[in-house]
């Protein structure tokens, strides 16, 4: 593949193509330059050489409990939030729902309660 290093002073040839689609080229023209004009570099982050390891911390009931601290039990706000949460869990299908579907259901429920 490699014919010359980029940016070298060796003459390079470009081809201009005109058409109505990439597979329907009508005319072509060539021009030669003293060096390559389009300088491109591949950043190391774009070329993974090792398998990417992803670690996701599980946010469980503990986190949920922490978020409840400011809410007094048996208040109206507490009841509404718990109602949304219970409803959300009841309509969630862990086997079939994608990430977006889960989010969609949650936002739909919040919207519904806000309207009510």
């Amino acid at each position: 593949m490699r014919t010359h290093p980029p940016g070298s002073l060796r003459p390079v040839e470009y081809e201009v193509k005109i058409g109505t689609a990439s597979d329907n080229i009508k005319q072509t023209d060539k021009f030669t330059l003293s060096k390559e004009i389009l300088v491109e570099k591949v950043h190391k982050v774009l070329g993974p050489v090792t398998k990417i390891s992803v670690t996701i911390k599980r946010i469980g009931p503990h986190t949920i409990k922490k978020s409840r601290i400011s809410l007094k039990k048996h208040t109206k706000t507490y009841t509404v939030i718990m109602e949304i949460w219970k409803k959300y869990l009841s309509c969630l299908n862990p086997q079939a729902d994608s990430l977006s579907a889960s989010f969609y259901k949650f936002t739909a429920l919040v919207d519904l309660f806000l309207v009510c």
Partner: protein
Amino acid sequence: MPKKKFFFELLPPINEMVLDVIALAANKMNWLLFLGRLRGDFRDRKKEGIIPAPAEKDMIKLVAENFHRQNKKVVVILNIGNVIETASWSNQVDGIILAWQGGQEGGNAVADVITGKVNPSGKLPTTFPIDYHDIPSSKNFPVETFRGRRKLEWVGLSGTPSEVIYEEDIYIGYRFFDTFKVKDSLSFRLWASSTSFQIDQLSADTKQLNDKLLVRVRVTDTGKSSGKEVVQLYLTAPKGSINKPAQELKGFARAHLSEPKPGKVMLEMTVPVKT
């Protein structure tokens, strides 16, 4: 229809109506057959959505056979916003109109094209493959979920941890099909204008190359009616130390040649360059 559990619940699709195609074909009308797909954000497409279902293919075949028997035309209108497989059925119909994402005026736009009020000149923003597996990313989609990881059920914004490797590299869309000479299904020409154009007198001005590349081209309407044509400019760069596609789209310009004298027009396109 089943009752919704909550306001935004997505209900299952309604079953197809039973068509009396033979009776319909006996009428004086030609047939417009709509093939649609849901489009939007928030979810990846499934392979099953790209390949028409057997019921859809059967419907196209049934309608085409019965209407052709009565010497009538069948046109499929693709009400889609992304690629679907067309190679297995496109030769059964007389025409295909791609409505794409026309919004609330989409219906009027399609009607204008069908009645001849507008001469279509749109271009596809993507390549339609012959086979689903011709798409390079088909090797890596849908994503591979990590085995042994639990689905995160407690949080709304969560799913099963998974990974996808973008193995196709820079060869996305036409860059892949052109570089590796993979034949595609629907060529851009299928939605061509009802008139014809000639493109010639290409000249590339390299005098001001430290700033831009100026390309001129002449477009002539050689047909009998007016129309628009989008001329595309591709550039093939010399092979260097990194992979490059066979050609890359660097610019485009639209030629509008109207009646009574469609005539000729010179188009100029500039490609910004960096030395």
